[in-house]
């Protein structure tokens, strides 16, 4: 058992899962916005990092880590709401390219604003749990208490979001508001409120991804850029509509990336997303967990 856990295969698999959950989390936040407002938020990663910067910077000043996490979450939630009301709401009903262009611009604004607000700090953000990997008979298993915390937190958030969408009245209304806003209004659903809520929720998830990525690393405005690209592919692999699909896509990309890194070359790791995307498009172009719906008109 010991040699199994420390085998190269399992080592790369575990490494892939721990990086995959972060990709999955960001992919999930993209799916939430897509499901609730049919907008692709290209600033999702940067918004998450902004929220993480607000909270995690205070960790260096001695503020309790958990308070800083809560602060990041609150900033993320608020940023989502404000972004929807100020930048996105005026664009509803306009060509679909408009919000994309605006959010790409917003990405640039955030990534420029962060270094001008906070001085660079190369020290890694202290973590609440040890980052030292467990040992088994003198062999290293690529799991630390902090990695377990990251994975459990990410899975908890994913589970909560999936339950919200699938099993609650609020989730039902949010899905309906995105799929059929006019019909939802005719049924008395306060659609605008739900669209804002979708952004708030998504941005909160993005903020938590920012916190997970930043903990144990030095803070940089671009920390999420690479992850965002992988997350975008993961969301597409899942069909953009499916939280489970986004999570599966994220994990697949994380694990593929880890295997490429381990067995092949670190230069080839960015290929992971492309490989997963090409295979999934060839097998199920509509997304791995998306049902084929025939709309009658």
């Amino acid at each position, binding site marked *: 058992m010991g040699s199994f856990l420390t085998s190269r295969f399992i080592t790369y698999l575990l490494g892939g899962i721990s990086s995959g959950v972060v990709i999955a989390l960001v992919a999930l936040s993209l799916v939430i916005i897509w499901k609730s407002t049919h907008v692709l938020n290209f600033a999702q990663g940067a918004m998450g990092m902004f929220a993480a910067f607000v909270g995690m910077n205070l960790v260096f000043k001695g503020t309790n880590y958990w308070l800083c996490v809560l602060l990041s979450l609150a900033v993320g939630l608020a940023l989502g709401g404000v972004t929807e009301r100020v930048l996105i709401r005026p664009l509803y009903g306009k060509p679909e390219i408009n919000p994309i262009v605006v959010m790409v611009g917003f990405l640039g604004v955030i990534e420029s604003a962060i270094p001008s607000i906070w001085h660079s700090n190369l020290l890694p953000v202290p973590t609440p749990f040890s980052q030292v990997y467990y040992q088994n008979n003198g062999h290293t298993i690529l799991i630390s208490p902090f990695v377990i915390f990251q994975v459990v937190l990410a899975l908890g958030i994913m589970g909560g979001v999936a339950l919200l969408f699938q099993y609650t*009245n609020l989730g*039902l209304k949010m899905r309906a508001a995105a799929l059929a806003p*006019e019909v939802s209004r005719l*049924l008395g*659903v*306060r659609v605008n409120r739900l669209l804002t809520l979708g952004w708030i929720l998504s941005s909160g998830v993005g903020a938590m991804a920012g916190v997970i990525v930043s903990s144990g690393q030095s803070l940089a405005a671009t920390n999420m850029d690479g992850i965002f690209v992988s997350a975008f592919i993961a969301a597409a692999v899942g069909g953009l509509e499916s939280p489970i699909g986004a999570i599966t896509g994220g994990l697949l990309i994380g694990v593929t990336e880890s295997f490429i890194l381990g067995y092949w070359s670190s230069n080839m790791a960015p290929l992971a997303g492309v490989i997963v995307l090409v295979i999934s498009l060839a097998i199920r172009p509509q997304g791995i967990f998306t049902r084929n719906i025939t709309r009658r008109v």
Partner: protein
Amino acid sequence: MIHVEDLSVSYGAVKALRNVTMSAPTGRITAVLGTNGAGKTTLLRAISGLVKPSSGTIHCNTTALVGMATDEIARFGVGHVPEGRGVIAEFTIEENLRLGVLASKIDANEGLERQFELFPVLGERRKQYASTLSGGERQMLAMARALIARPSFLLLDEPSLGLAPQVTAEMMRTISSLCTMEDLTVILVEQNAKSALRIAHEAVVLHLGSVIASGTAETVGDDSDLRRYYLGLVQ
């Protein structure tokens, strides 16, 4: 009662409704008839707040609807089954119905059971996706979803569209009995004048956005000029 007074609606330079005045009495079915482009759908959309009138008023009993948001009008008690039914294909039958009741104070489970009694076929397939239903079943679902919140007013836009004659006849019978059972004030927009006049108490004929005739369904149906030129009914 729904009372529309001097209502005009424009889409840019195109006038869809021109000074329309009509009433739909309480507990009765008022058919709004006319050819394509007469303004029938626009009239319903204006009542529901989906389009803003350029002038005129709309009252449900004593409440003025112009200026209210669509969701507010729905919560006030106006159910609207839009053209094409508006059933959400990605939802199950139960999810579609549940969505209809969430904005009201009605208990969801009670509402569901009631609709399943009215439309047993929906109850049998409650977990089935709406995308799998036939046209007639979708129409039933759309009506059940509008009725589940127990509205006082029901706007039906072309419920017979795309349905076989037998299914249309069944649908019209259902509308008629629902109107009586639920004491609903119904505005029924239809191109299929023959079917609509069979169950309607009152009728209004629109042509190019203006009311050209109104009265009891019987008098409108008996007018040979209206039948020939506006309702497509051959003598």
